[in-house]
């Protein structure tokens, strides 16, 4: 049994190494996703604001100084309202604050074509104006203790996300297209005629592509550590074990799609569709806090959610497997069900 498994793994490795273009792509994938893209995430996220002083008093300069001192705002004084409005239309600034002549209300004009920018601008400026006017915080001071600080920007947060995305794309796609290729070229029939059981076939695919995914994860993690100083706060073994459980689920999904598809194109369409849905619902881009309870409930059947959430907890928060057993269990269960279905399906093919 182990000898057969070893032979199949050797076959898979030879097939992978036979196509130099694919090996090149596999090497380039972590470099692009982990080594380049995150440079666009760690950045100056300060909102650009201009103040129009209709009162022509010292209040304008005082407000500019106050807003500019905020870590979220970069502020300048505008020459005129018309000039500031032109700047906001061209996207050079995010908001305008109009200081009234005495007694009138402050006005904030925020661009909401990118809704987050508009809401943040209104909120941060509003808070600064309120804090300048009220004394509430002094009566009951609020002391903030940030836990699990992973840096001053989003780089580490999204690096963890990208590592999950990277191994999912490679693990699932490689497995699915390998199976559908063998199905279309009748290699699967030949393998079955040697007496190989569908279970052994699925296990060998699972093992090989899980190993490929783990190697890619190791390379990605090395790049993340070298370039962005991301070091897992939790045990590395627990992190790799979580990744292995996730790969088990996602590679099984690829094998199942390939086993159920009639042609390669059909398998590709189905995988693209499923990936789109699973990735966008995984809380990678829009956190769970933004979802209504109904949509948030979809996470229970989404392996991406458990992988990403578990990775954040281990890599950024330093948690151990014992603290998040549910993540491992759900991924193992999903992998078990999907690989079981794949075995049944492949048995039916023959």
């Amino acid at each position, binding site marked *: 049994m182990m000898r057969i498994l070893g032979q199949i793994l050797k076959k898979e490795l030879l097939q992978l190494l036979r196509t130099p*273009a694919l090996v090149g*792509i596999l090497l380039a*994938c972590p470099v692009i996703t982990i080594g380049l893209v*995150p*440079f*666009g995430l760690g*950045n100056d*996220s*300060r909102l650009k604001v201009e103040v129009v002083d209709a009162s022509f008093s010292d209040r304008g300069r005082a407000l500019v100084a106050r807003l500019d001192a905020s870590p979220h705002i970069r502020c300048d004084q505008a020459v005129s309202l018309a000039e500031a409005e032109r700047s*906001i239309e061209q996207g050079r600034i995010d908001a305008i604050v109009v200081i009234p002549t005495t*007694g009138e*209300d*402050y006005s*904030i*004009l*925020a*661009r909401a*074509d990118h*809704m*987050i920018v*508009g809401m943040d601008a*209104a909120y941060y400026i*509003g*808070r600064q104006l309120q804090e300048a*006017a*009220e004394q*509430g*915080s002094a*009566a*009951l001071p*609020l002391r*903030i*203790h*940030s*836990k*699990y*600080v*992973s840096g001053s920007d*989003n780089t580490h*947060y999204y690096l963890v996300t990208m590592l999950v995305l990277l191994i999912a*794309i*490679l693990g699932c796609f490689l497995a699915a297209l390998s199976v559908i290729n063998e199905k279309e070229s009748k290699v699967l029939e030949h393998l079955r005629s040697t007496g190989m059981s569908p279970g052994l076939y699925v296990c060998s695919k699972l093992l090989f592509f899980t190993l490929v995914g783990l190697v890619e994860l190791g390379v990605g993690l090395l790049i993340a550590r070298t370039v962005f100083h991301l070091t897992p706060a939790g045990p590395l073994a627990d992190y790799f074990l979580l990744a292995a459980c996730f790969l088990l689920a996602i590679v099984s999904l690829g094998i199942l799609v390939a086993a159920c*598809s*009639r*042609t390669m*194109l059909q398998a*590709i*369409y189905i*995988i*693209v569709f499923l*990936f*789109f849905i699973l990735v966008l619902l995984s809380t990678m881009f*829009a*956190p769970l*806090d*933004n979802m209504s309870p109904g949509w948030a409930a*979809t996470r229970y059947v989404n392996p991406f959610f458990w992988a990403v959430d578990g990775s954040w*907890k281990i890599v950024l*928060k330093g*948690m151990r497997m014992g603290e998040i057993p549910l993540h491992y269990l759900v991924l193992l269960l999903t992998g078990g069900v999907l690989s079981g279905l794949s075995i049944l399906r492949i048995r039916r093919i023959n």
Partner: protein
Amino acid sequence: MRGEKYHRIRAVVRKEFRHIFRDRVSCMLLFLMPAFIMLIFGYALAFDVYRYDIQVCNPGHSVQAERLFARLDAHPKFRVTGRLERIDAIDGAFARGNNRAVVVYRDDGIDLFVDATSPTLSTNLTLMLSSVTGDFAADEFHLAKPSQDIRIRYLYNPTLKKEYMPIPGLVMLVFILVSSIVLGTSINKEKAQGSFRLLRLTRMSNLEIIAGKSAPYFLITLLHVAVVYLICLYFGVRVEGSLALFFALCTLYSVCCMSLGILIASWFDRPLDVLIICWIFLFIPNVFLSGFIFPIETMDPFMHAVARLLPGTAFIDAFRSIAFKGTGLGANLPAFGLLAGETVLAGFLSLIGFKRNIPR
């Protein structure tokens, strides 16, 4: 001569249509995928906070603390999911569920423990909580409220409709994946099976074969553009600018994506390569660097320049500008120019690729 060329291309178009309609599942996915994805994520993908889960701790058993916690629980953006008896249980509180913060009330002030793994989320949460505690303190200690009010006016999305945020990015992603992968893998499959070489043995040129294979997908893309517009209307996202310009933008962008798919197919031999390259080199950079999630103005100059070259960035910029701001062609000329330029460049490079990789 021209008529002959036309007949040859028409023959490839007919063949491609037969391929598309032969497989019902693929055909259904091809036609319905963009509509389905946009409908789902028009509802599901939200970039504004629905509700933060927080936990509270009242070690001094203060009555004031209970009033603050009740106020927090009644707040539409917070849900108190648990109560800690001891302060040393705080670490455990962050391991379970989706807890984002723990509020500890003491006589000399409030301690707020925030999960700062995502700086964006934690900053937003801190500001919201400090706003609630500030109002609470003002009410409890009868402090004077500021006499001046703040009026906020949102430009280009006055009612802050939440669909305005994901729709441009979703359209961008749907086209970049569907248009590039579908056409790329279709061409690649012909290459892998050797039928591309067979076609080259006839009098057809590479350009004619590619034109013939692309034409059906272009027609399907036009259908997708119409569907995208209808879904925008369904979600209440109205096009403020010229409708013709909006359709021209969507069509040009999807043609650009198709040409990127052809480019990848011309240089790589297997559908697997196309699939991986489209996801890793088109999907991931365009999700993170196009302004879909983070505004590109926040990037450093080098990454800003890289982001500006992505087709997704040009598309999202022009989409927001035409649909939300109501601007005309003049304001969007750079985006149109970039998309057209990239389409031509990708087309040119793919012709070189086909010439090198599939000699007659």
